[in-house]
């Protein structure tokens, strides 16, 4: 199962607008995608509430994982998103 650990670049963390942008992108992907804090339990990356409840801050390390056909690309695209400051 493709997996990647990235550092969140958005100044406000994964809250507000950056969370919405991320979840929207995840929801549009054809495969199941999960997000976790490094070493923490994984949640549904397509769920706004679950992603918000992770309380991810600027500079936190998170793990993206996806399953099925196109999983590798999905992880890649989302990783790129997280490494960009979405609130800039």
């Amino acid at each position, binding site marked *: 199962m493709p997996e990647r650990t990235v550092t969140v670049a958005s*100044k*406000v*963390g994964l*809250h*507000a*607008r950056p*969370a*919405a942008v991320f*979840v*929207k992108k995840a*929801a549009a992907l054809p495969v199941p995608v999960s997000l976790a804090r490094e070493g923490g339990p994984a*949640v*549904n990356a*397509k*769920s*706004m*509430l*679950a992603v*918000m*409840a992770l*309380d991810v*801050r*600027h*500079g936190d390390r998170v793990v993206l994982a996806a399953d099925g056909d196109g999983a590798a690309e999905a992880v890649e695209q989302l990783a790129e998103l997280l490494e960009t400051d979405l609130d800039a």
Partner: protein
Amino acid sequence: MPETAGGSAAEAAGVAGAADRTEYEGVGVGTATVAGPVARTAQAPPEPPDVPATATADEERRKALAALAAVAADLRARGAAAGGDTADVLEAQAMMAEDPDLEERVSARVAAGKTAARAIHETFAGYREMFAGLGEYLAGRVADLDDIAARAVAVATGVAMPGLPRRTEPYVLVAEDLAPADTALLDRRLVLALVTAEGGPTSHTAILAQSMGIPAVVGAAGVLDLADDTVVLVDAAAGTVVARPTSEELEAAVTRSAAAVTATALRGPGRTADSQPVRLLANIGGAADVPEALAAGAEGVGLFRTEFLYLDADEPPSLPAQVKAYREIFEAFGAGARVVVRTLDAGADKPLPFVPLGEEPNPALGVRGLRAFRAFDGRNEAVLRTQLEAINEAADAVPADVWVMAPMVNEAPEAEWFCDLAASCGLDVVNGRVGIMVETPAAALTAGAILAGRTGFASIGTNDLTQYTMAADRMLGALGTCQDPWHPAVLKLIGAAGDAGAATGKPIGVCGEAAADPLLACVLVGLGVRSLSMAPSAIAEVRAVLATRTLEDCVEMAARARWAATAREARRTAAAR
């Protein structure tokens, strides 16, 4: 909006007198008097009872998901109408309403025999509890969750969604209190005035009304009994709402409003009718606030909050980054303009990883403001030192007159400590450009001793001074009515600081909601205050009202107000002058 008031008051005149005149009292925001028909926000539906569903689980599930989808669609439609940041905020809320995890949990509850409404209620309650325990930011989103839940439950039970009335004609908005999602969408062309049953002068609604320039009366018990389309006369200066006013009252309101329109045409520096200068300054929290301050004719900045540089950061902003941010603001103001920078106001209620303060049961009374840098053997001092060095560097060679002040000072030794540190960072202590905020009764009562030292000026933060004087947490809605800077105890403390200023020849200012209340501004001048810093939108009205009173009038108003028994009496007796 006095110009709107005139028209609607005249139109309303024919409607009045049909039933009994009723008066409600609250806390006024602004000075305008307006009249118009009541439109109430729809109330949040009651908690749906936990009774077995009568329809099949499949029907209840469909009903629940349809309700959530309808709420999401409604939020998006309102976002599209509002545009900008509001659209982003409401889009995020819409995504919460149609969250796949949420839908799954709701479906599971329905499968277990709950009604659609109950399943929605319980699921949101679960998220609510989770968010509330997850730190300040997410706790702040609880109100959003409650709002979405209330809307979805309303749809599922077939009642109107809570929120703003949909109207095309101007109205007086009456509500218990306003939800953030509602306030973002207020249309100031339609909303003549805000009237709420809950809340005090520093409530969300009051601050919003102040910044939008909409007259308001908050904390007016009983107003929820008013039926839609009842004509009310809202007198923000007196803090009263009169239902079914007499035609004489309406005519008088039209005349007063016309006078206010003439007065707001004034420009220029602040002064009393007999030309005593009173510097009118703006409160700003970053560069984005500067254009409005300049447009309002602010003579500078009386409170430059610097927290924006620190919040949400993992390490303190670097010296060059701070110099750049401060210089951008200093350069916006010309020669002679004063810009007063408040150093970082840290506290346990807004924790910063690089200013460790520990857990506190009561952050309002804790290690905050200047204390954060003096406590713990000065382990956090470097953060303040860097800030002072940055301010000093940014102030170099700009035309504006840059002053610096420390928050949360109690007594002279703290002020002297701050002066020492500021001087060692190059700041101009000798010529009085380093001062303190007076936010505690202790500082107000010992202002003479503080100003007898090297402290160059004092700026009174009336929001905190009121909270500490009244022993009432300003974050507690239930104690909102205690948070009234008109309270004579607060006025006497301001007077003590004013006397200390006169005795030492050092300037005393006010920054806080109190300065934005035109009538109270006159009282403050009467108490010895010579600069008033406020939200830019309030400057025109304060300038206008100040220009109608002589210094002697102000002194007389202050004398009356400070010997009143209550805030309400103080306001009444000052207004009568």
